[in-house]
C-alpha cells in the first residue's frame, strides 16, 4: 500500500532527487563502490581505482543517477569524495614506484582534494561513510566525518566494505558507531549490494 502511494506521489510530483556523498578514509573502497552503483544504474563507471592512496583527488560526480528498487525510483547525484586524511606525505607514494616529482604533485593534489571533500560536508543530502572492515574503524577521520554529518542532520549509512577479505571485522564497526545503520558489503564483488540499495531507500528515499 505504501509502495503504491509512493509510486503515485512520484508519478505526479516526480521522483525525489538527492546528492549522495561517499565519504571515508583513503583506500576504504569509495570509488569501487561508486563505480558499482554507477554501473548498476547508469551502465558506466565513475572513476579510476588504484591501490595507491589518494587516487581520487577531486570530487567525482555522476549526475542524474536513477536508482530503481522494488518499483520505486530515487534520482541522485552521486559524489565520490577524495579520501579524508589528517596527513599526506609524498614519501608514502614512492613505495608504489611513483617518482619523486610525481609523488610531490600527487601529495599537493591530495591535500586540495581533502579540503574539497571537507567543504562538501555541508552540501550533501545524505552520506555513505565507507570503512575498510579489515582496519580499526575508531579513527579521528571517521569520528570527524560522522560528527559533522550528524551536526547537520544529514542521514548517514555506514558501509562496512571489503568483507570478502580475511581479517574483516564488521562487529568492530558496529561497536564503534552503534547509533548508525550499517550495511556489510564487498563493493569489489557486489556482495550484499542490494541490501545497501534497500537501506538507501529507507534512509533517504
Amino acid at each position, binding site marked *: 500500500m505504501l509502495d503504491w502511494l509512493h509510486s503515485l506521489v512520484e508519478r505526479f510530483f516526480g521522483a525525489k532527487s538527492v546528492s549522495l556523498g561517499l565519504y571515508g578514509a583513503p583506500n576504504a573502497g569509495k570509488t569501487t563502490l561508486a563505480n558499482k552503483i554507477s554501473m548498476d544504474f547508469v551502465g558506466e563507471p565513475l572513476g579510476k581505482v588504484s591501490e595507491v592512496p589518494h587516487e581520487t583527488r577531486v570530487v567525482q560526480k555522476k549526475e542524474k543517477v536513477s536508482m530503481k528498487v522494488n518499483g520505486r525510483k530515487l534520482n541522485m547525484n552521486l559524489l565520490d569524495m577524495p579520501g579524508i586524511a589528517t*596527513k599526506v606525505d609524498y614519501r608514502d607514494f614512492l613505495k608504489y614506484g611513483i617518482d619523486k616529482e610525481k609523488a610531490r604533485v600527487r601529495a599537493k593534489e591530495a591535500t586540495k582534494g581533502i579540503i574539497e571533500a571537507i567543504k562538501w*560536508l555541508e552540501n550533501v543530502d545524505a552520506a555513505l561513510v565507507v570503512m575498510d572492515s579489515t582496519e580499526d574503524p575508531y579513527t579521528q577521520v571517521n*569520528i570527524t566525518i560522522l*560528527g559533522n554529518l*550528524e551536526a547537520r542532520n544529514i542521514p548517514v549509512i555506514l558501509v562496512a566494505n571489503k568483507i570478502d577479505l580475511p581479517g574483516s571485522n564488521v562487529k568492530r564497526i558496529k561497536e564503534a558507531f552503534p547509533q548508525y545503520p550499517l550495511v556489510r558489503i564487498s563493493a569489489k564483488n557486489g556482495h550484499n549490494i542490494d541490501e545497501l540499495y534497500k537501506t538507501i531507500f529507507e534512509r533517504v528515499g
Partner: protein
Amino acid sequence: MPDIRIEFVSAMALKDLESSKRIDYLLKVIRKGSLIVLEEKLTPDEERALIEETMNFVNDKFTGIEISSLGPVETNQWKEKVIKFLGGKTSGLTVIGPAKIIKEIKNDRSKINLLAGFGGDKP
C-alpha cells in the same frame, strides 16, 4: 635523539578565543614540533577546520597531524558555544601532534595510547 616537547593546555586557556583562533594556536604549536594535550574535546566544526587548515600547510617537512580525542560527540554546536561563552568547559580530552613524530596512536574510547619518536619505522 632529539627531545619531544609536550604542551598541556587547559580548556580555560583557550576559552576566550574564537574557534578560528583556537585552531591557529593549536597549529602554531604543532608546526613547531610539539605535542598538545588539550583538556577538552574539539567540536566537529573545529575538527573539520583543523584538518582543513592543516592541509594548507602540508609540505615536504610538515606532513600533517595525528589527532585523537576522548569524550562524547557533542553535535549540538549551539550547546557547546553557550557552554564556552559562559566560561565553562566541555568534557573530554584531545591529543594532537605532528604526524612525523607520532608513530602510532590508538583510541579505544576510554584511553588513548600514543607512541612518539624520531626516525625509525613504525612498529
